[in-house]
């Protein structure tokens, strides 16, 4: 904190004008504001997805229920899956990454601030387009996995599937653009001395995820394009009666879909790897092993897609290969878990809400990992796949794992982002309520699944013996909703009345804690010089650095060197700070792309009108791009630095 005050005092205000009010948000190119926009919009979508889940749980609470019609139920689980994955978890991770990565590597912004703004707008518009479908004939009702040929016009005549394709397409473009941004930012914008092997593990995981994303998403994009052409332009990629191949869709989908799981979980593993050391007051145990096991998981993630297809009949050899590759993933995952345990071992554990969530992550993720082992075994898989056992497994990984990890991150970084502390008491209530109700909701699903309850059914018979499990799940889900309301209440009250957050409330080790809370618009008055994995920690506790006999910089040289000139002298040469100008260009381009998307959906049915809409969209895009080029020229010599 002291550091931040010292350095902040030495700089004149940056040469950037932030527009006031709404305009400031609509035209922003600041990674912090964009990060907050990601988090807020993703959380709204997340709540909507949660409501969809509640409706399903109410329907399944008792046998032979008639609360939802089958078609509405099918829309609900399609939208729940799509929303949680594409509009909830992914952008929550992106939001935390967007806000924290530049701060953690000592950069003033992302590498491409305008592209960053484009990503957030495309994501928001993609999500909105998906939800427009509810008002124009019904939401998609074919499952988030959209297996062919159920998605063909013959079986799914409403425009729901088209909105799904375009909505996913827009968020996909947003994700790829975001991933490119992360790759370049992390590889290229690191502060001097921040070598790859000194990067915070959260940054490592974001880098791995960005690489997974740029290689996995195009495959889904091609699949959805082919589906769109099947539905509207007479092709037959997935039409078996004309020679098309229903299984090809599954290959394309899961070649994306399995890496997607790691896209969702790796960033939260990164969060855990920040939170656990901070609240254990120790460095992460086995930094390199945690980092490179992430790389291994990312790589193996591309070799296991067909374990979602063991019942498809690919043959024993293929199944054996994909089963073996899936088993292998247990190894780097186990390494991570043991390293986290070792990080806590002999530490001084400060059980904040964030830490509780990190521990909750480990405890629940272990269950999800174990249930994954039986699913990776092809013979057992064919009993368990498409049953509620998978629903249980997947929620232990993505809820017990990813969501708890995200909460660990939110409770950890909320003070940094808002300058206010979240209420710890409420937070702990939320944690315990969530842990209990989460298990109440999802643990019984292991049992109902193994007792023969298939997934995606809107009703079941009483005599099947699943009544108790389903009732418990439903009760659990209602309690979960209360836990989320507690969180919402906590955020809304803390943001106004929470206690003021200091720069470094948790005695952190990484660079984001070296600046004020919230950070100044330019992040760092002076670019920090990084000399170890824990730059701020070593600045605060130089003697500890020496004690453990580390190979890095001798303690004497560490003191006060995080920021040149922090020892009272003026920095050698005060660099001018340049930040990207605010601009509406990315917003305009996104609007154009969205209109183009609407045109594509209706091109097959209303040729002329749709084509004119597409033309309008293109014109708006062109206008946006022109203004983009102009502003980027004005800014060009001054990319955030």
């Amino acid at each position, binding site marked *: 904190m002291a550091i931040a005050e010292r350095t902040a005092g030495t700089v004149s205000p940056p040469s950037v004008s932030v527009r006031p009010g709404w305009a400031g948000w609509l035209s922003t190119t600041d990674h912090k504001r964009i990060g907050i926009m990601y988090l807020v919009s993703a959380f709204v979508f997340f709540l909507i997805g949660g409501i969809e889940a509640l409706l399903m749980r109410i329907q399944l609470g008792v046998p032979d229920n008639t609360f939802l019609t089958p078609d509405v139920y099918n829309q609900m689980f399609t939208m729940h899956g799509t929303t949680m994955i594409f509009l909830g978890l992914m952008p929550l991770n992106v939001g935390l990454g967007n806000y924290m990565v530049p701060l953690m590597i000592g950069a003033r912004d992302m590498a491409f601030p305008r592209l960053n703004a484009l990503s957030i707008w495309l994501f928001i518009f993609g999500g909105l387009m998906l939800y427009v479908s509810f008002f124009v004939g019904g939401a998609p009702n074919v499952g988030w996995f959209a297996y062919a040929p159920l998605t063909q016009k013959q079986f799914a005549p409403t425009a729901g599937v088209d909105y799904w394709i375009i909505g996913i397409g827009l968020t996909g473009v947003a994700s790829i653009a975001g991933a490119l941004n992360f790759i370049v930012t992390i590889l290229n914008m690191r502060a001097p001395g921040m070598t790859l092997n000194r990067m915070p593990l959260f940054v490592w995981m974001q880098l791995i995820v960005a690489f997974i994303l740029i290689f996995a998403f195009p495959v889904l994009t091609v699949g959805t394009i082919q589906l769109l052409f099947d539905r509207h332009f007479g092709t037959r990629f997935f039409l078996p009666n004309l020679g098309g191949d229903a299984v090809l869709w599954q290959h394309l989908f899961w070649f994306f879909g399995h890496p997607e799981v790691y896209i969702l979980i790796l960033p939260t593993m990164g969060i855990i790897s920040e939170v656990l050391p901070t609240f254990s007051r120790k460095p992460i145990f*086995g930094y390199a*092993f945690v980092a490179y096991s992430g790389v291994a998981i990312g790589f193996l993630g591309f070799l296991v897609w067909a374990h979602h297809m063991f019942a498809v*009949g690919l043959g024993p050899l293929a199944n054996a290969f994909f089963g073996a590759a899936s088993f292998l993933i247990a190894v780097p995952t186990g390494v991570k878990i043991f390293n986290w345990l070792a990080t806590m071992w*002999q530490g001084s554990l400060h059980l904040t809400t964030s830490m509780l969530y990190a521990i909750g992550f480990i405890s629940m993720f272990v269950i999800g990992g174990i249930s994954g082992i039986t699913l990776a075994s092809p013979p057992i898989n064919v009993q368990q796949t498409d049953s509620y056992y998978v629903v249980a497994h997947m929620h232990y990984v993505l809820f017990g794992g990813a969501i708890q990890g995200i909460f660990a991150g939110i409770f950890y970084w909320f003070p940094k982002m808002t300058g206010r502390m979240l209420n710890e008491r409420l937070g702990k209530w939320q944690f315990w309520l969530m842990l209990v109700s989460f298990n109440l909701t999802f643990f019984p699903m292991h049992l109902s699944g193994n007792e023969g309850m298939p997934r995606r059914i809107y009703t079941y018979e009483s005599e099947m013996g699943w009544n108790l499990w389903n009732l418990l799940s439903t009760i659990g889900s209602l309690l979960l909703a209360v836990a989320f309301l507690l969180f919402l209440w906590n955020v809304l009250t803390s943001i106004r009345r929470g206690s003021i957050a200091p720069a470094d409330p948790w005695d952190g080790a990484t660079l984001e804690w070296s600046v004020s809370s919230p950070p100044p618009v330019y992040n760092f008055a002076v670019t920090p010089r990084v000399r170890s994995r824990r730059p701020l920690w070593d600045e605060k506790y130089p003697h500890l650095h020496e*004690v453990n006999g580390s190979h890095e910089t001798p303690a004497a040289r560490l003191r006060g060197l995080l920021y040149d000139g922090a020892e009272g002298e003026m920095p050698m040469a005060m660099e001018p700070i340049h930040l990207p100008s605010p601009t509406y260009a990315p917003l305009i381009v996104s609007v154009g792309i969205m209109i183009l998307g609407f045109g594509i959906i209706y091109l097959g049915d209303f040729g002329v009108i749709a084509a004119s809409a597409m033309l309008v969209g293109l014109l708006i895009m062109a206008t946006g791009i022109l203004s983009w080029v102009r502003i980027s020229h004005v800014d060009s010599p001054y990319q955030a630095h």
Partner: protein
Amino acid sequence: MNTLPRSFLRWSRFLLLIGMSVVIAACGNNPGNTYDPYGDNARRIYELLIPIWWMALGVFVVVEGLLIYAIWRFRRRAVGAAMPAQVHGNTQVEILWTIAPAIIVLVIAVLTFRTQAENAVMPDDALRIKAIGHQWWFEFQYPDLGAEGKPVVTASDMYIPVGRPVTVVLESQDVIHNFWVPKLAGKTYMIPGKTNFLTFTAEQPGIYRAVCAEFCGEAHALMRFRVIAVDEAEFNRWIEQKKTPPSAPAGMLTVNGLTGDAARGQAIFLDARKQCIACHAVEGTNARGQIGPNLTYYGSRQTIAAGILPYSPDNLDRWLRDAPKLKPGNLMSRVLTPQWIKANLSDQEIADLVAYLDSMKVSVTLPPER
């Protein structure tokens, strides 16, 4: 922080509860329970699950135990507690816990591949049954057992002999379905444009619940069937009867307060204006529709509308009047809406139809429900 032990107590009580539920569940014999196998395929899977389950339990106990111990032992007891030693890692330990999970998964992999190989065996003498998925019902054909090259065709009830391997040839007419008899065998997809095979042997006679396990559209939840495993002699008796067309319908049946006449019912059924034969077939008559289930010997079905209603003349009457409500989305009621039925079939005609369909019976001694 002194509230913590209480939390842990709560925690462990909760875990105990979960553990007990597992035990209870494993002992139950619900109709779909995979822990209660009656077929060789399902049994081998179950027997593979047991050792893996124990290993998983071991991993669970070790990891969660270490975690809980660490929280209890190393939690900060006072603000300003001494700074712990700054340990960065230990390569030997890392190697150890890289190898340990590797060994566990290796063992699991070996066990897995053994079971996989056993379950993939398809004996030559297996009885071939073709199962075809339709939105939203299952069709079964016995290509090797028909008369004059015509297979025996039925729907929703799959009869198999006990103790003899059965190879189900899986196909689909429209979208992807998934053939699942939890107590007999694991799932296999029915994919349009592709043929899959699944071999299993029923070890005991019984009526086994089965479902479509892959989401296949609006009425996916209501796409069920029964596997009826009877001893070989009974199976042969069944197939012999199925090969012979039903004899001329005769007899009366009281349905819904009206007396239906089976012979009159047949005439209505075969009347093209009443639309039945556009989709349905009955052997030995002019009814040769291919779109809906074959209704030969319908009176011996276990269920109506693909496993959703127990078979009875009264339920059949309900089905004919109220199909959209009983099974939303079903093809028949999309064409023959309740309004259409009201306009084209009198109550008496419906009673006659029910009497006709109910009159076609085969005689089989049914095994117990499993």
